[in-house]
């Protein structure tokens, strides 16, 4: 397959943070094809968020090549080839739902009627009809995250980068948002690179799961998720689902993730951010 048919291509990507000399990523090779849903999974401190930021040209790799949509990552960012969603929705308090969604479009210089038309489509897509004029603080966590997803999709980027987008939501909302995201992914036909530390979430959503190990962040293995599409609530109950969850968990253990050890969360997150 030629390189310009590949959405993301990482070869030999390493990242060492200047402060503290922490080696966040070592020799990462990964290719993401169009229409794939790839999850990056690993314990806190494995550099999965850093890797996502490297793809988005928000963090510069120390070594290696990052190609997005056939271009260097920097050019891809300037061309707005990807949309970003964080764990927190990061909405602007002073803007309504509709205005939050249209923010990237304003930056792109779309005129008002065109923005309004696109916002209408997106509101429908993320099922927030009736909340257009609400302010972020009037929405639940799940609704805020839907606004963030709509905002990321607003300018139709071919690639969506999602950094634990549902990590702050309760289990029930999370499962509902998983279904929503799959529906949006299928409707929009884009490619998604998704960071999570939930094994079940990764297996349920993805076409492939990339398993990472901590310090330095490395890829331990890649699991093809051959569950039938479209995924439904029943998918989580298939025997194959449990087999794949086990496979991912085994890879995590082999990579040095100790499920028995207590985790000092904050310390590891600080290490991951390179603080």
């Amino acid at each position, binding site marked *: 397959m030629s390189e310009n048919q590949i959405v993301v291509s990482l070869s030999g990507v390493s990242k060492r943070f200047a402060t503290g000399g922490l080696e966040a990523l070592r020799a990462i090779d990964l290719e993401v094809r169009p229409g794939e849903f790839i999850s990056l999974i690993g314990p806190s401190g494995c550099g999965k968020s850093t890797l996502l*930021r490297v793809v988005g040209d*928000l963090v510069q790799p120390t070594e290696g090549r990052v190609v997005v949509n056939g271009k260097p990552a920097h050019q891809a960012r300037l061309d707005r080839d990807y*949309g*970003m969603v964080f764990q927190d929705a990061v909405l*602007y*308090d*002073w803007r309504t739902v509709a205005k939050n969604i249209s*923010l990237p479009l304003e930056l*792109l210089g779309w005129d008002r009627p065109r923005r309004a038309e696109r916002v209408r489509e997106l509101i429908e897509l993320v099922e927030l009809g009736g909340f257009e004029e609400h302010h972020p*603080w009037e929405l639940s966590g799940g609704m805020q995250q839907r606004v963030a997803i709509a905002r990321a999709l607003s300018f139709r980027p071919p690639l969506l980068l999602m950094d634990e987008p549902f990590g702050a939501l309760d289990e029930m909302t999370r499962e509902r948002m998983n279904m929503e995201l799959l529906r949006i992914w299928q409707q929009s036909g884009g490619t998604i690179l998704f960071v999570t530390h939930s094994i079940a979430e990764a297996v349920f959503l993805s076409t492939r799961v990339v398993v990472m190990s901590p310090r330095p962040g490395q890829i331990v293995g890649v699991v093809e998720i051959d569950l039938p599409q479209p995924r439904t609530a029943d998918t989580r109950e298939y025997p194959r689902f449990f087999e794949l969850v086990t496979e991912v968990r085994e890879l995590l253990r082999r990579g040095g993730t100790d499920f028995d050890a207590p985790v000092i969360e904050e310390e590891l997150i600080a290490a991951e951010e390179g603080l």
Partner: protein
Amino acid sequence: MLRRGLVFVGVLAALVALWEAFKISAEAVNLTWPFPVNDRTFPHIHDIVGQLFEPSRRNGPMLIEVLWDAALFTAKEAFVGFLLGATVGFLIAVVLVHSNLLQRGFLPYIVASQTVPILAIAPMVVVWLGGRGLPGWFSVSVIAAYLTFFPVTISALRGLQSADPRALELMRSYAASRWKILWKLRVPASLPYLFAAFKISATASVVGAIIGELPASIQDGLGGAILNFNQYYLSSPTSLWATNLVAALLGIAFFLAIVGVERLVVRRAPEHVA
């Protein structure tokens, strides 16, 4: 709304009662420390308010009319000074937020500017601007602006830096220019900080205008009135007290005007509203 009105009237009545109670009891025990209390040093509230409706001089207009005109004059100086100071203060913050080097280099001098007493600066401003064909009151506005810009610069700097780091990352992911980041993210994020500073600055601009009138030898404002009634304090202490009352009301009016504009402009989660 009714409750707030009642609280306001209640507190006002309590303050008046406290004033009068102190006066009565101090006079009863012949208090001499820290100062002797009598009608000259500590007039009745009703005498102060009453003075407003006495002629300001023989066959002249009532004091309140004179002070009303003076207050309008000072308000003009303070308002222009506030606009000037807030604009300059904000622009300084915008420049400094984009360069750590400039920030570290210039901030000490900005702080130092406020340690120089305004009374030392004011005559120079009057001399510099006096010969430029500008109206005399404009020098006073510049002096007021000198007091105004400082809180605005400091708070605006803080406010412009208050944007969520991930919101800044998001802006970078949209390949937004510095200018767009400033207008779409930094400035809106700074508004609560900015208005907190405006409230301080608005009252400071009134103080600056009153003080600025003294070296500028401007007779038409509250500063001139204060200077004038100061000279006649022995014969009519209530005139000076009444002038101070009007000056305080002018400061409150400026403060409330900012609160009103803030209500219109700042849209924020309820817990974020200062």
